[in-house]
């Protein structure tokens, strides 16, 4: 069959040629007007449109029957790495670095150092608010930002239901997190240091708590 344009095309031939483009929504201008007029005035046009719709379904089905491999993206990633060089891992956050260092030293020393490290984190966060990847927002004007809090990590087998129930019963709530290392910032509804210490002690005693590091205490605690 030749590439040359067919001669002596009837109006019907021309409209049939344009119907697929009418159906896929790409027809415009004079061609669109001509097809719309034909559909509105020719009694045979609606049947022709039905035939084109059947072709549409058949072609879609024939294409959808071809299933790309499910591991295509992972193989492409390897090709991309080979082409562009291996991607660098994102730099760990300040909290992750503090936390990793904290876990790497003996606990008696680490717990003593934790307060200083977290204080450093707080200063850094206040000075550099909105860093990507950090959920903490210590500086702020709302009540949550001012309330006493504690840093907590939970055991891997802890359930959200258990944690939420306990915190709710004891005037505590998760304010932010987790950040790298699985650290949550838990707000404590305490007006005195004694209340704060009691609730933090309760959190630390729970089977779902892994580590608890005191943060901001109530105002009367200095």
């Amino acid at each position, binding site marked *: *069959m*030749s590439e040359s344009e067919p001669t002596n*095309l009837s109006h019907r031939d021309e409209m*049939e040629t344009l119907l*697929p483009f009418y159906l896929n*929504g790409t027809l415009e201008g004079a061609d669109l007007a001509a097809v719309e007029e034909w559909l509105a005035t020719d009694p045979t046009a609606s049947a022709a449109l039905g035939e084109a719709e059947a*072709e549409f379904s058949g072609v879609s*089905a024939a294409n959808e029957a*071809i299933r790309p491999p499910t591991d295509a993206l992972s193989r492409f990633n390897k090709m991309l790495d080979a082409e562009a060089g291996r991607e660098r891992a994102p730099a760990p956050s300040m909290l992750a670095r503090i936390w990793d260092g904290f876990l790497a030293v003996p606990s008696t020393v680490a717990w003593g150092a934790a307060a200083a490290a977290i204080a450093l984190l707080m200063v850094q966060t206040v000075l550099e608010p909105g860093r990507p990847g950090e959920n903490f927002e210590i500086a702020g004007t709302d009540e949550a930002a001012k309330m006493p809090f504690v840093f907590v990590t939970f055991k891997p087998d802890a359930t959200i239901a258990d944690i939420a129930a306990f915190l709710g019963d004891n005037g505590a709530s998760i304010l932010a997190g987790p950040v790298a290392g699985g650290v949550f910032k838990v707000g404590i509804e305490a007006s005195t240091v004694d209340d704060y210490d009691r609730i933090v002690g309760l959190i630390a005693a729970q089977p779902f708590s892994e580590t608890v590091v005191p943060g901001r205490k109530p105002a009367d605690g200095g």
Partner: protein
Amino acid sequence: MTAAPSQQSDLELVGRVAKGDRAAVRLLFMRHHARVYRFVARQTGSESMADDIANEVFLELWKQAPGFEGRSQVSTWLLGIARFKALSHLRKRKEDWIDDADAAAVPDTADTPEVAVMKDNKASALRGMVNALPEEQRSVIDLAYYHAKSVTEIAEVLSIPVATVKTRMFYARKKLGEALQSAGFERGWP
């Protein structure tokens, strides 16, 4: 405000790719890979070739993104790259390329539609008839019906004149109509 990645347009993602953003090229891969893969598989008749070529298309996207000017849709651009690569692969393998002149000599593969007709299933018959079209007519049909491309975009993907797109569409639909009629289905045209 920067749009969320899932809301970013293809053009915006290509802009990010041009700056070396691999996450953006992966997003484009996830959006377009299946259609590129199917387009190549339909052209070449080989899914293993489609697998290789589809990956190559997105590597080309990675390389060529800085030069993309956005004059066509990203999907049209990708299909054009896929078409070029498919042709190159076919030539390398010294497989016969079917052009319209040869298409007339292609043996009629109407058996498959006839089997479907025996099952009184017009949809299956039509699907078989579409598959039996000469490749260059089937590409036009696929690009219009499945890839929702305009006459101009198909011309761009296939590197042929607009008039040729219409010619191939005319003959493809005419052939489908004749095949349906010969299989006993009512059809008003041709």
